[in-house]
């Protein structure tokens, strides 16, 4: 029997789902090995008998908590799709602002209709089996994770920093161009796409298992970032971690 897959979204820009939707042809036709039963982005009919759930988005409302728990109950395997689901992502920036103000800013005159709670990754609510990190996710990695699941293998993410991919690509380090970079503590797997195009790594894939954050902060300071600047760069994607401290 083909494994049944469902894709769900919470608070997010839907960019990662879109990557998934663009892949659909590749997954269905090339693999011919899965059946998608629930995916709002590409279909109207819905099925609730899935085994693998790909879940996009952060949790930012009480009601989302219940919905996510239901998905967890049904799914044998739950995969966090993208930085919002994996880390809380950019949504967590709001955790550092006044919640009431944020609510009014986002929902305007309808603010009363919506509750809002500090943003959090899926893993803060339910156990998450695997993640496809990134903002947005990397197509190739999504395929790798899917292939592993279908072959009954554990998907594994690189546990080395982006610098490794930079050196393999023989990139000029952006620190040498007067920028600062979160690459030394960020999990690789994106083929160092930002530094390859001359930009700094913003850390969208999350930290490696055991980052040397203290030493890295000193590097950032040495290259001109203030304490606040350092905090801000980490809050872009790692904001939730700080709350957890």
């Amino acid at each position, binding site marked *: 029997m083909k494994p049944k897959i469902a894709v769900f979204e919470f608070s997010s820009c839907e960019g990662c789902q879109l990557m998934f939707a663009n892949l659909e042809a590749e997954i269905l036709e090339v693999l011919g090995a899965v059946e998608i039963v629930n995916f709002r982005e590409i279909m109207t009919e819905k099925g609730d008998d899935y085994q693998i759930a790909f879940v996009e988005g952060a949790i930012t409302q009480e009601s989302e908590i219940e919905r996510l728990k239901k998905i967890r109950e049904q799914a044998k395997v739950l995969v966090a799709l993208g930085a919002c689901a994996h880390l809380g992502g950019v949504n967590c920036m709001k955790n550092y602002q006044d919640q009431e103000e944020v609510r009014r800013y986002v929902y305007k005159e309808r603010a009363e209709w919506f509750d809002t709670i500090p943003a959090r990754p899926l893993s803060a609510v339910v156990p998450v089996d695997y993640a496809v990190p990134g903002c947005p996710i990397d197509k190739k990695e999504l395929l790798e994770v899917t*292939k592993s699941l279908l072959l009954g293998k554990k998907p594994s993410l690189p546990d080395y*920093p982006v610098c490794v991919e930079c050196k393999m690509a023989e990139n000029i380090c952006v620190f040498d161009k007067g920028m600062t970079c979160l690459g030394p503590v960020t999990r690789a797997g994106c083929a160092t796409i930002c530094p390859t195009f001359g930009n700094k790594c913003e850390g969208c894939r999350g930290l490696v298992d055991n980052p*040397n954050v203290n030493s890295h902060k000193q590097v950032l300071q040495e290259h001109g970032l203030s304490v606040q600047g350092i905090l801000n760069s980490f809050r872009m994607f790692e904001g939730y971690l700080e709350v957890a401290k």
Partner: protein
Amino acid sequence: MPLKVIEKRDVEPLIRHLMERFQVVGIKKKDGKNTYGVIESPAELRLDSCATITSPKKYFFPQRETLLQFAVDGSWEPQAVVEAQPRIIFGMRPCDIAATWMLDMAFSEVNADANYLEKRKRALIIGVDCKEPCDEYCFCKSMGTLEVETGYDLFFTAADDTYIVRTGTPEGEALLGEWGKAREALYEDRVKLRAVQREKDERFKEALEFDVEELPRFLEDSYRSLLWDVLGEKCLSCGSCNLVCPTCYCFNVLDEVKLNLSEGERYRVWDSCQLEGFAKVATGENFRERRGDRVRHRFFRKGKYMKEMFGRFGCVGCGRCTRACLVHINPIEVYNQLKGGE
């Protein structure tokens, strides 16, 4: 081996000539820095710039390389994949020539590695002499790699309007013979070569405060030194130092299954002993969990183990690791501190 002379203005035609039969690789500019790359037109080649980000080892031992193709269900025998093409590395520095010798040992002594050896066999190395140190990070003179006697097919030294060319192998000699525009060196050329070499030697300073032959002993005495902990606190475990090093040859072997889920390939990628996962084994144990232990391991490899294994140091003093290290871990300083008994 005979000594030849080539006029500098004839180098471009020589490269063009070589390009007809070989892929010519050499130092090119990338975003203001130097890297080894495939030469598309002779004017791109920078014969007198040094300090490339990574080393030319990538032409013998690529960052990622397919080793074999297999069927997931084992329905056909795995097929070995060995890729190689005729190639000339034009302008390899003395330090990298010394490093290539080290790789040759590593990939042939214990296990003959077909993927490496086939590429190596089909490549010719044209070395070029350095005129002055790359920067404050290189210490080739202290490591004894500023002069190389072997390891090249041809070796160019600039002298006035000419290159004086040492031939290192019959293949190198044949290459010039078949091109036909190199002349035999005269007595004056030999005198000139010696003068150039003397002047060059004066421009390079000794960076190590001791005779490098003492290095293995200093390391041995420092196994429990606190210095490793201090360096471990700084080290980001980013792996850059290994990945840019011309003598590092560790790799990881992985499988990738194709989209059809029935075939796949086994490939290898560069690995680094500074990464946390490097010494982790299947049971989850990690032999070098502590950062300081990993830093120590790297320096012991370079300054002791490889010397014991192959008779030469695993560090050729190119300085690449220091240039790449965001926390300024510099072998010159580390080794000098060890000597001071730290």
